[in-house]
């Protein structure tokens, strides 16, 4: 099992944001988490990556307990993430953004006395990732100067930079124009082929085309987990969330 949560719970004061969620993600699968706004999806993500400590419950990554670890520790053992709101190194170039994210995994800590450009592994890796994400042509631009769509793509690139075993994408298409969304969907489909990912997404077209498993969250609780066709036929899901959509 790549990732497993046991009764993962987060309470903010009187609000039960995430309520005893048990999730299992197998290697090589794309596991989507869907649900209306406020269902607790991002809070759930933030507990996986250590940004928020859980009130209760545990997270296991490759059968090792990771709940309680700090975000930088979790990042280092092989979980990469993107954020719903762009969180980039805005004053640095696109290549430098990805190089920084790759550096620690490839070269380790505290090199003081050699020029950073003589460390080739992270530079090569950054180029490879930018090529895969199809923004290599923007490598020399400052991240803050990119269009929203390109910034979203760079978000995904930062999640991939260290070649992590598990990738968490938090609404990769959020705030995108229709054209940009089409491009991002194509991109994620391409990435999904050889990776293990957990994806939070509102775009049902994307969710249904990439997912191996879909979990539906509603008011912090899992109301259904299954293959896309099972979820599409699930009466409670249709009622709570999907409206008339049929995959």
């Amino acid at each position, binding site marked *: 099992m790549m990732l497993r949560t046991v009764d993962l719970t987060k309470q903010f004061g009187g609000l039960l944001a995430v309520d005893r969620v048990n999730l299992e993600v197998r290697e090589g699968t794309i596991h989507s988490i869907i649900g209306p706004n406020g269902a607790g999806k991002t809070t759930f993500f933030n507990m996986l*990556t250590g*940004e928020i400590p859980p009130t209760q419950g545990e997270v296991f990554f490759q059968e090792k307990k990771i709940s309680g670890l*700090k*975000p*930088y520790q979790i*990042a*280092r053992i092989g979980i*990469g*993430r993107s*954020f719903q709101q762009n*969180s*980039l*190194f*805005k*004053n*640095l*170039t*696109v*290549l*430098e953004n990805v*190089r*920084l*994210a790759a*550096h*620690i*995994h490839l*070269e380790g800590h*505290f*090199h*003081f*006395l*050699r*020029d*950073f*450009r*003589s*460390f080739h592994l992270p*530079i090569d890796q950054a*180029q490879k990732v930018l090529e895969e994400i199809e923004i*290599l042509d923007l*490598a*020399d631009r*400052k991240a803050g100067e990119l269009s929203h769509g390109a910034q979203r793509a760079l978000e995904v690139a*930062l999640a991939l*930079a*260290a070649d992590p075993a598990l990738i968490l994408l938090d609404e990769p298409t959020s705030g995108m124009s229709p054209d940009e969304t089409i491009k991002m969907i194509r991109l994620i489909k391409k990435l999904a082929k050889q990776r293990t990912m957990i994806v939070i997404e509102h775009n049902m077209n994307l969710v249904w085309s990439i997912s191996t498993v879909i979990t539906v969250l509603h008011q912090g609780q899992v109301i259904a987990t299954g293959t896309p066709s099972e979820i599409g036929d699930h009466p409670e899901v249709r009622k709570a969330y999907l409206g008339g959509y049929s995959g």
Partner: protein
Amino acid sequence: MLIEKSLGKKKSLLDREILILAGLLLLLPWVLPFKSLPAEILIYGLGAVSFNILLGYTGLLSFGQAAFFGSGAYLTGLFLIHWGWHPALILILSGIVGALFAAVIGFLSIQQVGIYFVMLTLAFNQLAFFLAYQWKTVTGGDDGLMNVPRPDFSLLPGFKISLQSNLEFFLFVWVIFIGSFILIRRIIYSPFGRILLAIRDNPNRARAVGYNITLYKLVAFIISGFFTGLAGGLFALFMKMVPVTAIDLLTSTDFIIMTLLGGTGSLYGPVIGALVTKVASEILSELWARWLFILGVIFVGFVLFMRGGIWGLFVAIWNKFKSGRVKEPS
């Protein structure tokens, strides 16, 4: 080609930039009409460059620099008075004591961020000041630590360099300044230095990609503290005494003002800031008793309208002239 455009050119330890800087600074004793000022500029310049490791490159506004500067100065003064060790060894020790103070003050302060962090560094600097102020038997208190000797510098057995004249002492400081500057620039362009930039830009993302930002901030403090302590040691040799103002909060603000005025975006800004501040105060103080007011107005003007400082202004003008030139990532 794309890599070079995106990351800038690799910098060797000694390149044209360093040679130009070293050459220009070497001219100071012949250009400036004030005899002891050139050495003082380089000492404050080293302090300001060290401070910019924190402010410009890590995004940490430390008001604690005078604690590192003053502790280095007192250590040098005390060792020269009481034990008379070799000045080179004492200066290294003054760097180490600055680094130790920075490790303690930095460690406690970076537990907080934003204004709370700033207030903590300020409070610790006050603490260090009152310690020096009260501990009269060791530091001389308000009177300062008097009669610090400035010995000759024995390079090899039987071969001594005199540091007595203004020019001799300037050259001594110049060598240490350039050496430190080369080292600091190397650190800034090392992977470690780049991570500091990432932390300044977006600490949450730096953490999310795997960096222990608290540890990196602490190491930045220690490096800054080392070179600030070294500058303090030079200051004791320069003054032939240690005034209690060396550890005063006002010395911290001197470094801050020099750095902001010169520009935080590069390592050259603080050097220019130290030069301009020191020269301006020399000239203005002869013209008008309230000269600090003028310096204040200039400072406010730069902070309000020229955030890049004097260096930023220079770069902007340079780029206008050479438009189309590839700009290096800062």
